[in-house]
């Protein structure tokens, strides 16, 4: 490893690859931000420029925020994502603890089922979930947006892997100290697995903030729409082909995610690489 790091050709190659992929990923993003500050006339110009001749950002962003109920969609996003995350952790942490540290008949079978759930595409389940939601009478409410995601196989699996790295003796010590099994989960395992929890939180929030498919099915009322659905509605009704405000709205929607990711980046890598707390 350390030899590779100092070998110039390999290092150059690695950086070229990283820079190329990085650029490819970033271009649409930069383009979006660039369009969001351009006046309508400049957007479809033939020659390419990142920065507009006439700065139109304030007008575009004002329009994005005022001409539709974008702030309301974002509030919906916050409510839905927070609820999903809280319930996911409440379900996944005890489940993962049981799979990682307790011995009971059928444990491997249940773990197998979790893994199967992990490879099942979400979309496959949307019809049954829609019918279930209909029978529960919760379609077109926040609950409809939340309930399919409460049990996260990915969360259970990620937490289980992390909990497994925590020594059994810590669990034993906690039992002798008088903690109940649930107290062990919340007072010992979850705090020790904080990097994994944060990594999972980012995945969950990003996924559900940006989710379009299920909200499209589950809600029709604009009052419950999460941001991406809100943008679609916004595009159809208000802006038409007015791409400046549309891109401004998209930038506003993505903003909180970028801030969240950058501030939690340190734990994100720790959590996914499964580095146990020492």
């Amino acid at each position, binding site marked *: 490893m350390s030899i590779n790091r100092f070998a110039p050709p390999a290092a150059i190659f690695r950086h070229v690859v990283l820079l190329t992929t990085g650029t490819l990923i970033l271009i649409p993003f930069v383009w979006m931000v660039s369009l969001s500050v351009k006046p309508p006339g400049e957007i479809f110009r033939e020659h390419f420029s990142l920065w507009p001749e006439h700065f139109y950002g304030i007008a575009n962003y004002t329009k994005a925020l005022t001409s539709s109920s974008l702030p309301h969609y974002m509030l919906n996003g916050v409510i839905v994502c927070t609820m999903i995350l809280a319930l996911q952790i409440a379900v996944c942490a005890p489940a993962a603890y049981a799979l990682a540290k307790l011995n009971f008949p059928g444990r491997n079978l249940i773990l197998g089922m979790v893994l199967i759930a992990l490879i099942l595409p979400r979309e496959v389940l949307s019809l049954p979930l829609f019918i279930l939601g209909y029978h529960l009478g919760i379609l077109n409410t926040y609950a409809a947006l939340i309930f399919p995601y409460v049990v996260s196989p990915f969360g259970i699996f990620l937490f289980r892997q992390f909990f497994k790295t925590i020594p059994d003796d*810590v669990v034993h010590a*906690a*039992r*002798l100290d008088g*903690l109940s099994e649930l107290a062990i989960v919340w007072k010992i395992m979850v705090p*020790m697995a904080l990097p994994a929890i944060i990594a999972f939180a980012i995945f969950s929030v990003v996924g559900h903030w940006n989710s379009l498919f299920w909200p499209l099915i589950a809600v029709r009322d604009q009052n419950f729409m999460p941001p991406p659905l809100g943008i679609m509605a916004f595009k159809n009704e208000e802006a038409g082909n007015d791409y400046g405000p549309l891109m401004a709205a998209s930038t506003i929607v993505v903003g909180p995610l970028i801030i969240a990711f950058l501030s939690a980046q340190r734990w994100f890598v720790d959590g996914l690489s499964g580095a146990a707390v*020492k």
Partner: protein
Amino acid sequence: MSSIDFHEIEKSYGATPILKKVSLSIADGEFLTLLGPSGCGKSTLLRILAGLELQNAGTVLIGGRVVDGVRPKKRDAAMVFQSYALYPHMTVADNMSLPLRMRRLNAWQRLPLIGRLLPGTRGASQEIAAEVARTAEALGIDHLLTRKPGHLSGGQRQRVAVGRAMVRHPAVFLMDEPLSNLDAKLRVQMRAEIKELHQRLGVTFVYVTHDQAEAMTLSDRVAVMLDGELLQVAPPQEIYADPDDRRVAEFIGSPKINMIEGVVSAPGRVSVAGTTIASDIRADVGAHLTLGIRPEAFRLGAYSERGAISGTVRLIEHMGSDLYVHLDVAGVKQPVVARLLAERAASISIGHSLSLSVEPERVLYFGDDGRRIRAHDKPAKAAAALVRETA
């Protein structure tokens, strides 16, 4: 009252038996060490006592009360783990106060924020903090209370682990190889501190180790375990000088006891490695025995009334006050090791022959089944069978 009784404890993982009908009684206030090589089941026995694992059969009593199926926290036993098992996200003070908080505060009072507002929480919390501070002071870790375990040295962590166990005044103190992660110097120091702790607290200690020095220095009694069986339970001196079983004799003592094959050549005479030793064991003539001779039982030189073993010096180890001499003896597979006074070094050199005499009363005899044959004891079964064959 915190005596401990194990009654015919059996435990197996799958088809592998870990404990085979282990029965053991530990008196109130006793320091008992479970000694054995790794994998002998000693830690499993301790965990069964703590309630962390369940036995397949048998009964455990603490203070005369059957505790099978009683949850660990209700057993009034505290444990110090080899890895210390401190909670890394909590400060030393939080680590030590957790067992008290779990016992003295109810579920509502333990809630963050709300708990503090409930009646009684403040008083109890202050009491707990005071007790933690007292314990920390007694262990000399009061300056570390605000730190987290990650910032402590091995010895300090060890003390915190002891403090966490001590703070709730358990009836039984369990220690699972608590010193094996420390360096040699610190180990000796902590060993003395644990001994002192036991004298001060006066409660029952059950200590698990594979280190015979720890077992010998700390314990009132040592229980030697091998392959899931208790071989002998006795005070350290007795375990060393008067072992019941060949395996105990071989496990205890450094350098290892010399094991030499011998035959009863005539009534009261045992011939071994080219010499004859007077012996008052009652074994029949022709019986095969194994003689266990501790390295320090040898004396330099041959005396007519004692058996003398002669051989070629193969290796000399200087240990300061002592000298370990390895001798190749004809008819003995392993080199015979003798511990001699260092002053004798001048008269011994590698490659030369040497005669060692042994006092007959210091020789231990073992039968073919590994059991000890004592003086005026019945002959070993194997020996008897052999006699029948020849007759």
